Structure formats: C-alpha cells, structure tokens
C-alpha cells in the first residue's frame, strides 16, 4: 500500500507536494512515536475528521480538473490523503526523509496488533467520501464486502478491491451529477450514516481467532457440550439436574445498576412514608389552627416543697454516706424518737474537760476585755504631747533596734538615701503632679481648706524627703521640725481662732529667741571649716539674727494688738449677740480697710439677692439701701442693721476669708446696687402709671363686661388695702394696640388668616428656590444671554414646584380654608407608634383594625376576657411535654373542636375534664406549633 501511495504521489506532485512534506515528515518518527499518534487519532474520532475537512479548504483542484484526472488517481490520492491526515497532527515537523511505513501498518508482521489499521480503515473511506461525496446503501454493502474479502484474502487484495469499488462509486457520483445538475456536495449528506458504522468483529480472522463460522455452524457452545466430558463423574447428575431446572425457568434479566435500583427503592420508601405521614395531617392542622394548646392539665405533680425534694435524697458521695450513717444511726434515731434526754446522754463530756474549756474561754475573754479597755483608754487621750511621745517611743524603739543591729541601720539609711534621690529626681511632691498644677493654676486662694492643707502637706513631704541628713541620727530633730511644720499648717488653717493666734505668736517668739541665743558652733573640720566658708556662715548668721530681731518685734506688736482687739471684740460680741464675724475681721486689724470693704461688698450681694427673692418688701428697701451706704462709710455700725441681714452677715464671714479681690468687686457692687435701685424706682413709676391708666378702662367696656371690669378695679383696691397702705392704686388700661385690635377685630380676619396659613405652609413645606442665574453657569454666557436660564434648571424648578403642590394637596387641611392642621411630627409621641408592621401583618389597615378592640378587663365582660387573653400554650410548670401521639381526628371534628375551644375559652374546666378522660391527654404537639 505504501508503495502505491508513493506512486500516486509521483503522479500528482503539484497537488500533494506540500502535503507530502508533512506526511513524510511524520515518517521519520519511531514506531513508539507513531503509536500514540494513531491512538490519538482513534480517540479523536469524528472530531478528527472535522479537522481534516477544514484543512481541505486549502489549495486543491477544481472539480472539472479532478474529473479529468480520472478514477485511479482519485482513489489513490484519497488514500494518500488519508495517510496525510493521520499524521497531520504533527504537520509542523519538517524532516523530509522518507521512511517506509511501519511494519505494523504494512501488516507484514503478524506480531503487531492489527486493530489500529482496522479502526482506521473505516474512517479513511469517509474522508474519501468527502471528495467523492455520494455513497448509498450499496456503499455499506461494499464495506461488508470489503471486510469479507479482507477476511478471506488478506490485506493487499482487499485494498485493491476497495479501490475498484471506489472507482465505481466515483462513476456513480458523476452520473448523478450529470443527471441532476447538482454539485457533488448535495449527495454528501448520505455518507454521514456511515460514520456510525461499527465493525463488530474486533479481530481479524486467523487460526488464533477462529470466527464463529469456522468453529461452529451457529457459533454457540451449549452447556450440554460443555458437560459432556463430565459425564460419569461423581457430581454430574446433580449438575445436570440443576441445569435442567434452569432451562425450565425463564431467563432472568440482568439486575439493574445499583444507582437506579437504589433510586427506585427510595421512591418506594418515600411513597410509603408519605402515606404514613399524611395520616398526621388533620391532627397537626388542628393543632396549628387551635388558638391555644393544653398540655396534661390533670397530672398531679405533687408538692414541690423542700421537704418533698429532701425526702427523695440518697447519699452518694463518701461524705454524704458518712453523714447519713451518723444521722441514721439507730441510737440517735431512737433517742430522737423517744425523748430528748437520751440525746443528752449521748452528748456527755467529762467534768475536767468542761472545766478546762471554761477556764480557757474565761481567760481569753478577760484578755480581750483588758486589751479592749486599754486601747479605748489610749484612744480617748486627746493630748497631743502624749501622742507625740507615743510616736517618739515607737520611733525610738525602731531606732534602738537599728542601733542594736547595724545591718538594719545601714539598710534604713540606704533606703532613706534612695528615697531622697528619687524625690530629687522626680520632684514628685513638688507640685508637679497634674492635680497640684491644676490647683495652683486656679489659685490656692480659691481652694478650700482641705486642698490647701493637702498641698502644704505635699510640699512638706518634699522638703522632708529632699533634706540632706543622716536620717537615723537626726530623727528626733526631724520630728521636731515635723511638729513645727504641723504647727505652721495649723496656723494657716485654723488661724482664725484668736486664742490660737496669740499662742502661736508666743511660740514663734520663743523660737526666734532660741535662734538668737544659739551660739554657732563653728565646725572644725570638713568643708565648712574652710575660711571662706566660715566667713560666709558668719555673714549669714548675722543676717538671720537681724531678721529674727525684726520678726520678734513684729510678733510683739501684733501680740499686743491682738490682746487689745480681743477686748474690743468682746465688746462687740456683747453688742452683736455673739457673731463671729468681727473676731475674724479684727484679727487683721493692721489692715482693716480692705476687710471692711470686703464685708460691705458681701452685704450688698446678699441684700440684693434677698430683694430678688421677695419683692414684696418694698417698704424697707429704700432704708436698706441707705443703710448699706452707711456701711460703706463705717463698718462699725453694721450691727444695728435690721434683722433681715443677720444671716447675710454670717455668710459674709465665710466670704471674707475667701474673697481675693475686694476692691474691684466693691466698686462693682456699689454700681450694681445703684442701678438696681434706679431700676426699681423706674418700675415703680411704671406701675403707678399703669394703675392710674386703668381708671379709664371700664368706660370703654361694653355693658356686659361692666361688672367684671368694675370688679377688677375694686379688686385692685382691695388688694392694695391688704398689702400696703401706700398711694391709692390706679387702674390698668389695655394698651393702645390691644384696644385697636379689639375695635377692628372683625376686619379682614380671613385674609389675615389666609396669609398666616400661607406662611405656615411655606415654613412646613418650603417653596423651591428660584433658579438664579449665574453668568456662565451651566451654559456659556453668550448662550445664557440669548436663551435665558438653561432648560434643566427650569425643569428642576418645575419638578420641585410640582412636588410641593402635591405635598400641599395631600395635607389634611388642603380643602379647609379656615383651618391649619400642623403636620409636624411630635418626636416624643413617636414612641407610641410602631416603627414597622408587626410580623404576620402585611397591610397597615388590617393591623390597625386588628388592634381596635381593647382586650383589657375594663372594656369587656368578665365572661369573655379569658378567651381574649388566653395564652398560646396552657401548661402547668413542671409538666413534661411528651411527643405527639397519633390519634384519629376527622376534619369535621376538628372544626367542631376548634369552635368549642374558642367558645369555651376561659372555660378551661371542660378542657381539663377532656384531658382527664384521656382522649387528648398529652397529645398536643409543640413541635408543630408555629
């Protein structure tokens, strides 16, 4: 075949040159390479043929030329074609050396599996058909023939035969074309049938592959034949019997595939289960539709008391068992049962034991008592010195300990040093904290006692911590300084007390004297012994002494003053019936003026506020103000003021301490008071005017209103008589505006109202803004100038207008000219409405109609309240809901029941009875309840 092919190729070099290249290129492939190609081909099947067809659109001869070329060539090139197609997959291989067809393809060697060729063959003629284009039923016959021939005569012959057949076909096609005048393609359709052609015989005939015909006439091997050799063997008869039976029975079809079988099974099961479940339907439906479900109402749950629960208790753990053993001890039980006396016997304790116990308790008690007494006594001691001593003692003991133990001392010193370093580093106590900063920013004066003390305390702490000293040795002195510091604090805080002050002064004097008397011990060693240091120390010392002297003088003078003022103050106290104000004020007599001012200032403020509170007391006001002026001049006479001022004075006391800037506030106060006074006067005048004008009013009134008006005036009189004996009150006249309005009330009210309505409407639904023209906005300026506003602007405006009109139309007062109904939402009332429709409802109307009837006991007869407010599920707590049980319910009964339930509603007894009857006990499902 290959040789032939080559020959054919020689005949048509132009036509196939190109293809040859490709075809030949494939031939250099090794067998192993070839094989997969072919397999590939097989796998491709129809798809491969499609490819070929496409490829054939390349350069080819026109039909008339082909005709001329004649039959044999045609057939060969078709064959060649097929060959080319086989290898077309690797068409890009360009090795042009020829190789003979592989052996297996040539069919020479029987070792090769021939299948591929055979499988290829049927497709090849198909390719040819494309060109030849017409094949009819006889083609098929041909093929059968071909196969037969092949079987009988071998490969080569068959191929020749095939070619002949094709020549015939060609001729037939040509004939058809000439007869019908249609192109060959028209007859192509029929060939498609052949594509499905399957050759059932997989293997070519050979001695290894005997065909049925060869082996047997009908090609069947019967069981009998197979059995023959077994005849006479032991199990033969049995087998034969079996086979006979088999023969008698009809043949069994092969079982269905598993998937299908299972599907069928499932189907059947489903049908069955459906039938099974549908029987529940009426029951479930009934339960669903029932307005409320009842569960086992008649079961007796017994008492669920603690006792009942405890009675069922059984000991489980070790401990419980032990306890139970003790509790359930026969002896104890017996004792309990019989009498309490035996229990006592069981409880016996020996006399010694008892005595010991008692003694111990007594001892402990007495100890406790004594300790308590002691601590109480100590706590009661108020003496500061005592506590100081106590503290000292404590410290001493500590220090003694330290002395005894140098390690401890060292440790302590180290600690102290560390603390100092830390403090110096962090300055934690030097008002650097946020809190302290804030307080300082606001000013210490503004703070109250406590904070100031706290600040001082902090500073003191800082001083303590940063002081350089050997802590242990100077501990006593430090404590002394501590004390002095405390004293200072005291002075600051409680300086107001005069006695305390004098004491303090005395103390200070003492101390300064001490300092003066102290002669300096010039250190003999260390840095301080250096001459310049000594000089410096001396200088400082002198300065200190001078200062101390000055201070002493000051102290003395102030002490004197204090004593003097103390006397004065006492006198004052006598006058003012024990007011503490002056004590405090006189304390700083050296600068009395500011304090006076402060006081007066406070007076003003207080009196002002008082006036605000009760305006009624106008009688005294003038006087008061005068008095206040007096106060300005001379604070000494304050005491003689009216009683009203007493508490204000008290207040002022506190304020004196705090007020930092007396002068300015004082001025302001005066000013304020002046204006206030003026204001007051003005008011009065106004009031007078008003009252006087009222006289005329009744004259203007109608006859009807006369009585009332006269009343008002008389009322005024009366009240005035009651309240004050001042100038005769005068009448009130409605203002001119009001009179005018009354007189012209009937004019144009409607128009006014219309205007008002329009205004309100505009406010609630604002009118759209007019499109305002910006040169060059939205359009070129020139265009704008010509055409006016851009259309989209106008359109927008129109839309907004229309919307507004619609909104206006929707308003409730749209058709009521004389009514304005506000459409403003009340935000507070929003919570009284639901935001969204509650779940099952889909329309607002239905929902609103469903809530129109109140269901409370105030609105309904007691017979129907129960039904109205019945819960969905009626169940005693503690009842276990059992799963639903089947029971026969027909549809009719269901509705009946339904009705009945509705009717009975609160009438639960009937239901209960029914439950007791066992008919519907515990069968109501919860699961299905929606």
């Amino acid at each position, binding site marked *: 075949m290959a040789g032939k092919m080559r020959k054919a190729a020689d005949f048509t070099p132009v036509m196939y040159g190109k293809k040859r290249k490709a075809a030949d290129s494939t031939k250099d492939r090794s067998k192993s390479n070839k094989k997969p190609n072919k397999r590939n081909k097989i796998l491709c099947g129809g798809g491969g043929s499609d490819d070929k067809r496409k490829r054939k659109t390349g350069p080819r001869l026109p039909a008339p030329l082909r005709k001329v070329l004649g039959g044999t060539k045609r057939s060969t090139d078709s064959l060649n074609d097929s060959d080319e197609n086989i290898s077309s997959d690797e068409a890009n291989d360009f090795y042009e050396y020829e190789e003979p067809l592989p052996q297996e393809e040539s069919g020479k060697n029987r070792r090769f599996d021939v299948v591929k060729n055979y499988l290829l063959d049927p497709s090849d003629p198909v390719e040819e058909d494309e060109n030849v284009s017409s094949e009819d039923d006889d083609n098929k016959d041909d093929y059968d023939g071909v196969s037969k021939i092949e079987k009988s005569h071998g490969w080569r012959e068959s191929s020749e035969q095939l070619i002949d057949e094709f020549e015939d076909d060609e001729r037939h096609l040509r004939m058809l074309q000439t007869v019908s005048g249609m192109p060959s393609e028209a007859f192509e359709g029929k060939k498609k049938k052949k594509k499905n052609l399957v050759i059932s015989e997989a293997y070519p005939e050979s001695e290894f592959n005997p065909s049925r015909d060869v082996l047997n006439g009908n090609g069947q091997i019967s069981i009998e034949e197979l059995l023959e050799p077994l005849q006479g063997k032991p199990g033969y008869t049995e087998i034969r019997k079996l086979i006979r039976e088999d023969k008698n029975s009809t043949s069994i079809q092969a079982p269905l595939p598993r998937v299908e079988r299972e599907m069928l099974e499932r189907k059947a099961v489903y049908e069955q289960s459906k039938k099974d479940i549908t029987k529940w339907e009426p029951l479930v439906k009934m339960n669903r*539709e029932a*307005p409320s479900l009842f569960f086992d109402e008649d079961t007796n749950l017994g008492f669920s008391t603690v006792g009942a629960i405890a009675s069922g208790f059984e000991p489980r753990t070790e401990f419980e068992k032990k306890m139970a053993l003790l509790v359930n001890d026969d002896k104890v039980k017996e004792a309990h049962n019989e009498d309490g006396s035996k229990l006592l016997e069981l409880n016996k304790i020996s006399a010694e034991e008892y005595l010991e116990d008692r003694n111990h308790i007594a001892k402990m008690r007495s100890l406790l008592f004594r300790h308590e007494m002691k601590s109480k006594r100590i706590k009661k001691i108020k003496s500061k010195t005592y506590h100081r001593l106590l503290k000292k003692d404590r410290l001493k003991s500590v220090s003694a300990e330290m002395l005894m133990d140098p390690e401890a001392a060292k440790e302590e010193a180290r600690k102290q040093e560390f603390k100092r370093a830390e403090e110096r580093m962090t300055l934690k106590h030097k008002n650097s904290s946020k809190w302290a900063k804030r307080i300082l920013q606001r000013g210490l004066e503004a703070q109250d006692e406590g904070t100031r003390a706290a600040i001082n305390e902090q500073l003191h702490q800082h001083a303590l911590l940063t002081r350089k000293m050997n802590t242990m040795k100077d501990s006593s002195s430090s404590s002394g300084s501590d004390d002095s510091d405390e004293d200072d604090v005291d002075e600051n805080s409680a300086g107001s007390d005069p006695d305390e002050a004098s004491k303090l002064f005395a103390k200070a004097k003492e101390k300064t004297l001490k300092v003066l008397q102290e002669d300096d011990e010039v250190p003999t060693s260390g840095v301080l012994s250096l001459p310049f240091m000594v000089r410096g120390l001396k200088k400082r010392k002198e300065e200190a002494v001078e200062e101390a002297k000055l201070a002493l003088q000051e102290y003395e003078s102030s002490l004197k003053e204090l004593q003097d003022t103390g006397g004065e103050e006492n006198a004052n106290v006598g006058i003012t019936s024990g007011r503490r104000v002056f004590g405090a004020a006189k304390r700083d007599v050296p600068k009395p003026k500011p304090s006076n001012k402060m006081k007066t200032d406070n007076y003003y403020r207080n009196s002002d506020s008082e006036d605000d509170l009760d305006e009624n007391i106008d009688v005294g006001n003038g006087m008061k103000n005068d008095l206040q002026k007096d106060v300005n001049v001379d604070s000494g006479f304050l005491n003689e003021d009216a009683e009203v001022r007493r508490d204000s004075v008290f207040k002022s006391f506190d304020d004196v301490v705090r007020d930092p800037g007396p002068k300015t506030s004082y001025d302001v106060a005066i000013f304020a008071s002046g204006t206030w006074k003026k204001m007051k006067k003005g008011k009065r005048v106004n009031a007078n005017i008003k009252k006087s004008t009222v006289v005329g009013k009744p004259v203007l009134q109608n006859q*009807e209103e006369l*009585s*009332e008006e006269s*009343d*008002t005036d*008389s*009322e005024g009189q*009366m*009240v005035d008589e*009651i309240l004050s004996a001042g100038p005769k009150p005068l009448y009130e006249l409605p203002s001119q505006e009001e009179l005018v*309005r*009354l007189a012209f*009330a*009937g004019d144009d*009210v*409607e128009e*006014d*109202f219309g205007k*008002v309505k329009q205004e*309100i409407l505009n406010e609630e639904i604002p009118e759209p803004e007019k499109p305002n023209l910006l040169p060059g906005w939205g359009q070129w300026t020139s265009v704008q100038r010509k055409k006016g506003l851009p259309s989209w602007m106008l359109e927008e405006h129109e839309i907004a207008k229309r919307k507004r009109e619609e909104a206006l139309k929707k308003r409730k*007062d749209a058709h*009521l000219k*004389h*009514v*304005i*109904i*506000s459409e*403003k*939402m*009340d935000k*507070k*009332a929003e919570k*009284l*409405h*639901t*935001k*969204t*429709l509650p779940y*099952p*409802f*889909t329309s*607002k109307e*239905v*929902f*609103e*109609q*469903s*809530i*129109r009837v109140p269901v409370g006991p105030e609105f*309904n*007869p007691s017979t*129907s*309240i129960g*039904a*109205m407010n019945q819960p969905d599920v009626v169940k005693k707590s503690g009842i276990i809901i059992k799963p639903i049980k089947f029971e026969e319910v027909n549809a009719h009964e269901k509705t009946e029941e339904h009705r009945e339930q*509705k009717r009975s*509603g609160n009438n639960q007894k009937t239901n209960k009875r029914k439950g007791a009857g066992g008919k519907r006990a515990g069968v109501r499902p919860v699961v299905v309840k*929606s």
Partner: protein
Amino acid sequence: MGAKEDDGIHENILPPIEQEISDELNAKAKKYLRGEGADLKALQDKKLKGQLAVREEIYGKSAKAAAKIEKWLLPSEGGYLEAEGIEKTWRIRQESIAREVDILSSRNQYDIVVPELGPYTLDFTLSGRFMAAAGRKGHLAVVDMKNMNLVKEIQVRETVRDVVFLHNEHFFATAQKKYPYIYNREGTELHCLKEHGAVLRLQFLRNHFLLASINKFGQLHYQDVTMGEMVGNFRTGFGRTDVMQVNPYNGVVALGHSGGTVTMWKPTTSAPLVKMLCHPGPVSALAFHPNGHLMATSGKEKKIKIWDLRKFEVLQSIPGNAKCLDFSQKGLLAVGNGSFVQILGDLSGSENYSRYMGHPMAKGYQIGKVQFRPYEDVLGIGHSTGWSSILIPGSGEPNFDSWVANPFETTKQRREKEVRSLLDKLPPETIMLNPSKIGSVRPARKKEKPTKQEREADMEAAIEDVKGIAMKKKTKGRNKSSKLTKKKQERVAKTKRPFLEQQLKEDQAAGKKRQKLNEQVELPSSLQRFARKKTTT
C-alpha cells in the same frame, strides 16, 4: 306637658320574639365592636387570616356578651322634656318642673346670693358630688352637693379668677391675682405655682394629671401635679385670652383668641396642633362635647357655631351671644348670656341643635359661668351675685360607672381610686388629636438628609477636634517634628475619610439614578443594540 324622669327599668315583659331581641342585641353590640373588622378575604396569608378570623369571632362574642349585660349595668334611661300639642319645651319654667319632680330633685333648684363677693365661678368634681365656688373677691367654698353641706369656706383676700378641682375633691387649684394656688379641702394652701404667673383660666387634665393654665401674657403652661414638673410652657402669640377649654376626649387644650381663631395645643409641641378661624370677631366662649367630636364656639359677632372636629367643619351656626358655653354629658348645650341661660338640644339626634329650654335669672345678674353637674339633671350657674342651680331634664348621664366616677364614693374607695388613677396616669405625649391612633404604625416621615454645608461643618469640626489632641511625647527619634507632622496629617486624613466616603457613595448613588433615568427614557427594545454606538459617537 310633663317632666319625664326615668330612673327605673322600663322593660315590658312581653313574650320574647327571638328575632327582635337578637336585632336589638346586634345593634347594641355594634357599639362594643368599635368599628368593622378588616376585610379578611383580601388577605393572602392563610395563617394570618385564620388567626384574625378567630380573633374577630372572639370580639363579636365579647361585644354580644357586653350588649347582653348592658341592660343590667345601665338600668336607667335618660328622660327629657316632652311637649304636648302646641306647648314648647322652652316655655316650661323651672317652677312648673319643680311641681312635677320628686323632692330630692326639687332641692336642686336654688339661688345662693352672695352679692358682695362678686361674680362666681364654679367647678364640679368628676362625680358631681362636690362643687367648688370661687368669688372674684377671694371667696372660696367647697360644697357637698348631696346634702348641701358647706365643706369648707375660706377667704383668700385676693382676686380669684378661676377654680378647678384636681383629681378628687380633696384638692383644688385657684387662679388668684398673681399666681395660681393649690389648696386642700381644709383650705390649707399647699402650693403656690409661681411659674404660671397671673393666670386667667385653669383646666385640669384628669387622665394626665396636668394642670393647664393660660396667663395674662398668653402663655400656656402645663404642670404635672404629681411630680410638680413643668411639662410645657408655650407662648401662644395670640395675646391675652381667658377662653380655654380642654377636650375631654383627647386632652387637647383649646384656646379662643381675640382674632377669632381657636388654637388647640398639646404639651409636647410648641406649635398649635390646629389653628382654625372660627369667627371674624373675638371668641368669647368655647365648649367640647364629651365625645370629643363636637365643639361649640361663640363669637362676639353674635354667633354660636357648632363644629365637627373630625372634619373641622361648621355643622351649624346659631345666632346669639354667649358669654359662656357648656355641654352636658348627654350633649345639651348651655349658653349663658347676660342674665339669661338658654339650653340647646340635639333632640333629633342629627346634630342639629335647637332650642330646648331657657331660664331667665333675676334682672341684673350677670352670668359668668355655666356648668352641668355630672350624673344629675342639674345646671350650675355662677353669676355676679352668687350661684344658682336649675333643673335641666335629660342633661346628665343616668348611669354612673363606679370605676370612673362614683357620686356615692366612700373614703376607702376614694383612696383606692386615687392610687389607681395615679397608676393609670398617662404620659403627656399621649395627648394627640386622635388618641385611637396610639399603637398604630408610625406615619412616614420625610427623610431629612443633612445638607452639604452641614456635612462640611461636621467634617470641619471633627478635624478641628483631631488637631486639638496633643501629641504624645515619644522617644528614640520618634518625636521628630517630621514624624509628628506626618502623624498629624494621618490623623486628619483618617477623620476625613468616613465623611468623604459617604459623600462619594451618595454621589455615586445619585449618578446611578440619573443614568437609570436616562436609560429608561432612551430607546425601544428593537433599537437597544444600537444604543452603545450612539453613546460613543
């Protein structure tokens, strides 16, 4: 002619005709059904339909049960004057009525003459058992109307403009010269409500425990009398008025103004709920029907108008002056003018008021206040020389509900009721024009987006805030000024971001919308495929 006062049961014992009875029952039950149920057939949801059907059935049964019980709970029927022949009811004088009625009723006709202490104003408790009378010149009196016993009488020596009972007879508020005061029954001054100022008219909202007042400057105050909290304080802006009435149905306070307008207020909004122009001249009096649907106003232009408050329309305009108006429990309208009281009645039931009765007082008496006594056919009249009481048959509700108001209340009952009513106190926001809307779906609100400027302002503020935060002091070269500035910028960007993102989102949404609109407009479907080309070119 005859005064027919029915107090007993007038049920004829006839052989019962089933149909008739059931019809009657149905008619009665309708009242208890409070309107129609929803149309269930239109509902799609079967389950809901079922549930609602069940509920409706229960409602129907309840209504029927209530209708059945009604005849036991409401045994008495109200009577009224019936004219025979050419007689007219308004010609019937009090004397002739007195001759017909029983002694107890005839005791309700009297005049109390206190000429010095000026025109009197009256107020009854809810049960009608007690009356407070206040003389202009400071005379305050609480009277037990059952036995005509003067409970307490005090003289405050100050102008008294109005008096009103609080929740029970133990407390009453008076509008005095400068402030309103609250007194207890013993005449002890409990409170002075200075915030109200010089009050002209007082009203008490029983269900909300609010004391409403209008003062000389046209300021409306609401004060909660339980906790003393000032709930509302509004300037009406319509000038001085002393025409004020609370609508018993919904607690809305109505004010009549000199411009002829009537405004209605609630304590939680500063603007009036309704403003209606009722008269061309000043409004002189105002009254509400107990069912809250009718309002009567009178103007100085000699007109009395009856309004339907559901539609805000005039039902009827009656000529006549009125200084004071009042509706009775049964819907009779008393009109006081000068020294003459006229009673208008809606006898036909068609909301058409006509003359029913009249009563001339002694010459020179100026009527200042008319008020019907609840649960009695009695009209109290406060006038310039004291107060009077006349019989108006058919004015009062014949059956009282002891849960609402019990004229025969014992001390214990009163105490219990006080507690109960305190527990049932309604918050002030429940006052609205249609209280039956409570619980319904909130009306849709206009979504108000913040304007661009507002948004920008917000952003600016946020940025400022961020800038203000002090930087932490860092170490190891992280405190460089460059790093700090970078960090600051980052912060600013971070705060800006959400604002910008939101804006972007909105812009995009707007863009999409516009695009959609454009697309919708564009082309028929057959030409859609060319659309793209068109946009590109």
